[in-house]
């Protein structure tokens, strides 16, 4: 009887843990949005896109643009998985080379 109870509890607990983990992952700001340097996009255009998509002020946008230009990439946002994906779509819509990665 005792054994049966333990087994039942264990069987119910496992999916619960999985769901909880997935929920935690979905809401954790553990995804970085990276913008990569490319030879064509204008500096002024990149600043504009950062302001429109990422709601940066001009100084922040300029700082990240310079980082992209000089270091080859810049981490422009830390978001939940879903929101990072949304931002990458919007940045790519403008022709920027943007990716997401777990950080």
């Amino acid at each position: 009887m005792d054994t049966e109870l333990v087994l039942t509890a264990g069987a119910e607990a496992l999916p619960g843990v999985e769901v909880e983990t997935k929920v935690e992952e979905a809401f954790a700001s553990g995804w970085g949005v990276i913008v990569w340097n490319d030879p064509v996009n204008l500096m002024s255009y990149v600043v504009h896109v950062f302001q429109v998509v990422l709601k940066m002020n001009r100084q922040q946008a300029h700082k990240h643009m310079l980082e992209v230009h000089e270091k080859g990439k810049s981490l422009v946002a830390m978001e939940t998985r879903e929101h990072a994906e949304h931002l990458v779509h919007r940045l790519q819509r403008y022709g920027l080379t943007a990716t997401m990665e777990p950080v």
Partner: protein
Amino acid sequence: MKCAPVPDKPDQWQLDWNDFEAQMAAGSFQRMAMHYQLQVDDLPPALQAHWRGHLAEAKDVEALKEEQHLLEGERLAWRSERLTLVEKWVAAYAKSGIGLAWSLQDREELEGLLMVLNDRRLILAVEHGIDETLMEVDLDNVAEIPLRQALWEVHVLALFQEQCLAALALAENPETKKDDIP
């Protein structure tokens, strides 16, 4: 080319072109109209890769398979949205002739213009293998005529983009002097 908000209609934007600029822009839009109509599967591999895009670096691709598929679908849908825009602009050019002024109905259309100009520049870069070195090269030193023409178009379209971006920055912050815009 000049870009400015229409007086008393702040959401509308007017583009004034000289004859050369209008012909140049219309030619680029016509080529983009043709490009957007092509099936992606029929494009060279480098352009197919450009249009499909990628969401993550190789090490993270496996974890984002479903999201990558969604991104591809969205990127391909942009082509038909932008085709509608360029067809509208080409029709406006055909109707008004050269030396024309185009009016863009709202900010969204101006953003669309920036994206289409950028698409043309990016596609030329992919087609001709234009890298940072070629972007800096003196065009007189480029012997291959198609490459020279592509570089020239990339630079001229950049000037159109710069004009629109400067106008947007000035409209959003009238205190900004044009020289202060990075």
